């Protein structure tokens, strides 16, 4: 059993989820003005997953993320101000404006990078986990991947490798029902992604990804098992993205009212707030105060990003190699 969440934990969980939501909602608004360059894939709706998982991790644990990576970054401790600048293509960004939305990484907090290649992270976390095992640390590695990536060979290879080597890896499938525009029902051959765990000799579980507490507990158990040498697990989190595959996607492949219905009835922040205020663990005023602080943080990050300098020609050829 994982340890009980303290009041501070609950405040952290709410702040993290709210920060992700505010970050993504703001990007959605600003993208529509045409000012934000490139491809942006938003995580809004899925906040309970990144938050519930990463609250079980330390900065010495590693995660690999996806093209929909902003939430994982924030939950793992990457600075949202630097992230915003990165997404705006500024020199002050987390990656000096050279990576953008799909490649935000910060190895100093164990964030191995968002990844533009679907399924690219599976093999990488086997490596960070192998290093932890060889060095005898108790660190774990988590590979976040989507239902689309669940069909990639890299994920199968990584699950087999992690099992064969008994590595401390958690394969964290975020099943939001759509691989780009193609539905899970069409493209995944088994009933649940968790069903695939047995083929690789590891435990698999499916949890409600709108419920922070369910994710936190299920991921916590898998992470604890991995820390104690019990090997890899597959945790499938069923959730929904509120926005399209990328910004600009009108989502006409979804049922009329599908997203609104989920927002109204299942939203992770809504459920969390109701539960912690009903139980008396947190007061609504505390949550409101966090909302205001987070809004100020994100507003400030946008103001800063807009006025920060872009990289210059002098930056074009730096950072290709350590030495060449």
């Amino acid at each position, binding site marked *: 059993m994982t340890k009980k969440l303290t009041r501070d934990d609950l405040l952290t969980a709410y702040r993290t989820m709210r920060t992700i939501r505010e970050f993504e909602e703001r990007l959605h608004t600003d993208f529509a003005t045409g000012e934000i360059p490139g491809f942006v894939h938003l995580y809004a709706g899925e906040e309970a997953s990144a938050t519930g998982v990463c609250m079980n991790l330390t900065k010495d644990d*590693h995660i690999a993320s996806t093209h929909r990576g902003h939430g994982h970054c924030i939950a793992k401790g990457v600075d949202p101000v630097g992230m915003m600048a990165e997404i705006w293509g500024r020199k002050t960004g987390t990656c000096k404006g050279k990576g953008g939305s799909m490649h935000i990484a910060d190895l100093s907090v164990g964030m191995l990078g968002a990844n533009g290649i679907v399924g690219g992270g599976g093999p990488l976390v086997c*490596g960070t986990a192998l290093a932890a095992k*060889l060095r005898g640390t108790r660190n774990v590695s988590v590979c976040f991947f989507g239902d689309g990536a669940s069909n990639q060979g890299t994920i199968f*290879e990584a699950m087999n490798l992690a099992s064969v080597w008994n590595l401390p890896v958690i394969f964290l499938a975020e099943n939001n029902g759509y691989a780009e525009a193609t539905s899970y029902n069409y493209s995944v051959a088994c009933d649940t992604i968790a069903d695939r765990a047995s083929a690789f000799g590891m435990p698999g579980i499916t949890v409600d990804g709108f419920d922070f507490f369910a994710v936190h507990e299920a991921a916590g158990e898998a992470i604890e098992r991995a820390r104690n040498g019990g090997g890899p697990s597959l945790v499938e989190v069923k959730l929904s993205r509120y926005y399209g595959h990328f910004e600009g996607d009108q989502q006409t492949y979804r049922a009329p009212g599908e997203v609104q219905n989920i927002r109204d009835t299942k939203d992770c922040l809504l459920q969390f707030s109701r539960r912690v205020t009903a139980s008396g663990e947190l007061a609504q005023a505390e949550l409101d105060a966090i909302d205001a602080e987070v809004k100020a943080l994100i507003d400030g990050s946008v103001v800063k990003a807009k006025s920060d300098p872009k990289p210059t020609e002098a930056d074009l050829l730096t950072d290709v190699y350590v030495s*060449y």
Partner: protein
Amino acid sequence: MARKITYQQAINEALDQEMSRDQNVIVMGEDVAGGSGAPGEQDAWGGVLGVTRGLYAKHPGRVIDTPISESGYVGAAIGAACCGMRPVAELMFVDFLGVCFDQIFNQAAKFRYMFGGKAETPVVIRAMYGAGFRAAAQHSQCLYNIFTHIPGLKVVVPSNPYDAKGLLIQSIRDNDPVIFLEHKALYTMEGEVPEELYTVPFGEAAVVREGHDVTIVAFGRMVQKAQEAAADLQKQGIHCEIIDPRTTSPLDTDTILESVEKTGRLVVVDESHPRCSMASDVAGLVAEQAFDSLKAPIRQVTGFHSPVPFSDALEELYIPSAAKIVSAVKSVKEYK
């Protein structure tokens, strides 16, 4: 102290000595021990051609057999390198690049740039390359040109035992991803190799023969072929200068250009297919930057724009021969 050992032994020795020096160095790949989990010897093979033989017993737990999952274990080597290990992953045949290239060119090669200079990925990927073993189209390619095309990778093609040891030690100590390519036909080549640890720097070509008539730039095994040709041409009064770049990325362009400025004539010898090759790359470099020095058209001696054939009758035609190099050198020497 130097003594004669083979190219294969030089590689084994470099791995062994670096593993002893640095606990972060690990070796992983298909059958690099060869026997893991089997009822007999746990290190029956030491690599499919025995290059890593003996390392398993000397370095317990750090010579790791992998499933046949190239994306999986090459990616794992890259991930381990991101947190300070120095893995040497063996891809066995470079032709297997096709089943793991994403991890190499989209992940390892780009981390440092995409992450704004905040990542180091000191991974080495070793692989065998080259034709001559009747191994046919999927076990005989060169492909160093494909890696060379990708910014972020370093690419090493040693042509002799001394360079193989020194360049492999440099590869392991280097903080960027390195592709280290070993020509199968060179494994039995003998040469003087110091017992102690030493490095051969990247991006420094070797002038393996000096001459004033024609510059021959040759890669990997083709250095041997060029030497055969040059010995023959010497008898005919033609003095060749042979340059072995040793690494295709970085490429020592200065040494190539200086030589062509001296000789005025260039033949490039590259075992790979001719299109978008190292041969065309060097020819383009010289045409652009040493045009005024040229006394004759540049000639390229390469394989063909075909898969590597199986039958010995065809494969011998495919591989650039000393005779073809002789002919190319004569044609540029006699050009009016």
